[in-house]
């Protein structure tokens, strides 16, 4: 209950700053916040929020466009980051997570380019850059939503760094990681985080600054 109240306050503040850099229309944000308020009640049991400072490994990943990139550089490009783990042949939770990311992207509207959505494959040998590009098209991923693959070891390093490795891909659980501002700590949402919850985390940082 206390947590719900905290959410409510943060959402309220989120609305106040909605005209800021995320460039959300106020009406849009109000709608999202209203919808969000009702979700929190229903999902309170299943989404667990925590904060953490993860040490990112110095690994090279392959972005879906084929470029070899450093994870640290990609995440540290100055934008707020929303990160999850997927594999393209997953038919259950990955598609829910990707649908949620697509919804986040839609709800951000014109402000979406100011946020970096990051999806890292936990099945990197199957998920070639080509397959990741096809997967991105399925969810209308915009230019601010990047997909990454790489060697098995690199993917495992990233999973371990974010404490999401569960022994094999089939056993992974839904986790969304949000870094609301460059250099801040991470917010970890375990469970099926909704788009309004993710947006609230992004906006929450603005209101605290």
């Amino acid at each position: 209950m206390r947590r719900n109240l905290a959410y409510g306050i943060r959402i309220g503040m989120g609305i106040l700053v909605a005209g800021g850099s995320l460039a959300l229309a106020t009406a849009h944000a109000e709608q999202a916040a209203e919808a969000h308020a009702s979700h929190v009640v229903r999902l309170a049991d299943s989404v667990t929020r925590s904060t953490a400072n993860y040490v990112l490994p110095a690994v090279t990943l392959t972005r879906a466009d084929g470029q070899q990139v450093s994870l640290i550089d990609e995440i540290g490009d100055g934008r707020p980051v929303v990160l999850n783990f997927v594999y393209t042949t997953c038919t259950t939770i990955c598609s829910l997570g990707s649908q949620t990311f697509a919804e986040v992207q839609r709800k951000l509207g014109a402000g979406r380019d100011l946020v970096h959505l990051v999806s890292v494959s936990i099945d990197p040998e199957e998920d070639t850059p080509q397959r990741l590009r096809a997967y991105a098209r399925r969810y209308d991923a915009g230019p601010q939503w990047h997909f990454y693959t790489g060697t098995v070891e690199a993917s495992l390093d990233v999973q371990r760094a974010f404490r999401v490795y569960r022994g094999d891909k089939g056993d992974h659980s839904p986790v969304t990681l949000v870094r609301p501002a460059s250099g801040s700590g991470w917010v970890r949402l375990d469970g099926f985080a909704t788009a309004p919850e993710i947006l609230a985390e992004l906006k929450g940082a603005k209101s605290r600054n």
Partner: protein
Amino acid sequence: MSLRGKGARVGRALVRIVSAVLFAAVWPAWAMAAAMGPMPAAPDTAAIKAGEGIYLRGELPSGAALQGRRDDAVPSARGAEAACVNCHRRSGLGSTHQSNGLNAKANGNQIPPIAGRYLFESNAGHDEANLPYVDGMRSGRSPYTPATLGRALREGIDADGHTLGKLMPRFALSDSDLSALIAYLNTLYPAHVPGVTPTVLHFATIITPEIEPERRKAMVEVMEKFFAERNSRQMVPSAPMRVSGKTQYGRSMFMVHRQWQLHVWDLTGSPETWGSQLDEHLAREPVLAVISGLGHNWVPVHEFCERKQLACLFPNAEVPADAPGDFFELYLSRGVLLEAGLIANGLLAPGATAPVKSVRQIYRSGDSGEAAAGLLARVLRDKGITVHESVLAPGGGSPASALRSAAGDDALVLWLRPADIVALGDPKEVAPRIFMSGLMGGLEKSPLPAEWRARTIMAYPFDLPQKRVVRVDYPLGWFRIRHIAVVDEQMQVDTYLACGLVSEALNEMVDTFYGPYLIEEIQSMVEHRIVTGYYPHLSLAENQHFASKGGYLVQFAKPSGNGLVAAREWTVP
């Protein structure tokens, strides 16, 4: 039987009759029959087909996309994303352990079986011999009727009035959509599965006619000894214990330990006739699954298995079918098609040498190299590279003479077997860069002439010899103890691995012997495997068919001997 149990059963029967009467006005006659008994009277082929479209692809019989609404908090789904198969699986048996990505029990998201018998028959105090236990079955829930199933699918209320989980969509289905879906659900995990008898599980292995007798013998011997050992460890049904009337190990234990029986299906003649030969073999000897086999062009075997919905695990197929939409065929690797990708990577990689502009491939028509060369040519031509081919007739022509007329290309790719490789002749005249298929050419034992060894890069879709030595040691020891002659180490080790994978998967399945479930089980468990034969690691998932996905490019380390060095690290094309 206790009075209480009897009462509950009578009560449930009453509920069933009452609900049948209540819904009689809206339900067709067969649905009434279904409501009164566990199964509809006669399968309706058109309805089953329509239901299959809903279940597998999220396509309604009208052609419209299936719509699945979820709680606003969870994204809704439509079309293929809403299809039942995504969560309940091809088998209809729901989640196997860890296979659904929902961390099943821990998250309370375990996906129940929805094969007709698990919905419409009582799961309570069920008879394990007829309705085997599977993870996620709702043992306390009353049996569904078509009417209550309709309510569950549309409104998310189960047979007892409980609300279904929030991840289960609420579907927009008409009455005829629902009848079609039920007709399909009733085809899943039938009471009688071919190849499964109360005491024996039947398996086949398939050998195509071009395979040398000694390699055939080497593979069959591994399988026969594996089967014999598995059978020797089995417990026989013990005498009923005096008091309980149960067997010592319980019925389900006895059933797990059914004897395995191997049927070797040898094919003859041309590939076009293999399909009908296999149909005849299967009619004579119904089997639960196909394990292993030996052959070059595996496409006709693959097509037979898909047509007959026969679960297969193939360790030794050189040319697998590349049919991503198919379900029933699992391979350890993509064979020569993977090699084509590895060689393409090698040719296209930016390196010290000038970019390749023209490539010549040499293969024998009708052999595995033909398909691999075709794939590589497509990839290279897409990149603007000219591809020439020197095709040798089956059994005729020498590679040396074919190569003499083929100077002037930047690179040469050899899709040849050892008998042709020894006769390659002088490499002075040929292209500056040379690649070869390791799988066809004999891997590190390839009889590549000395003057070719220093210049040739070999596709090697396995782990390097020095890295796999521990993983391969166990099967080799197993062969030694059983006096199995090692004729083709890679093939025999991977055949042994395939037998082991099926054996472990079946142990996990307990009594639920069903081909699609076997495929799902292997897809979910193979990643845990530590002894992975010739491969550095194996991994599968739903909609994946090739367990090892990458390979090396290697060169011989020295002018003689079997030592290899990696020319390019493990990559996935």
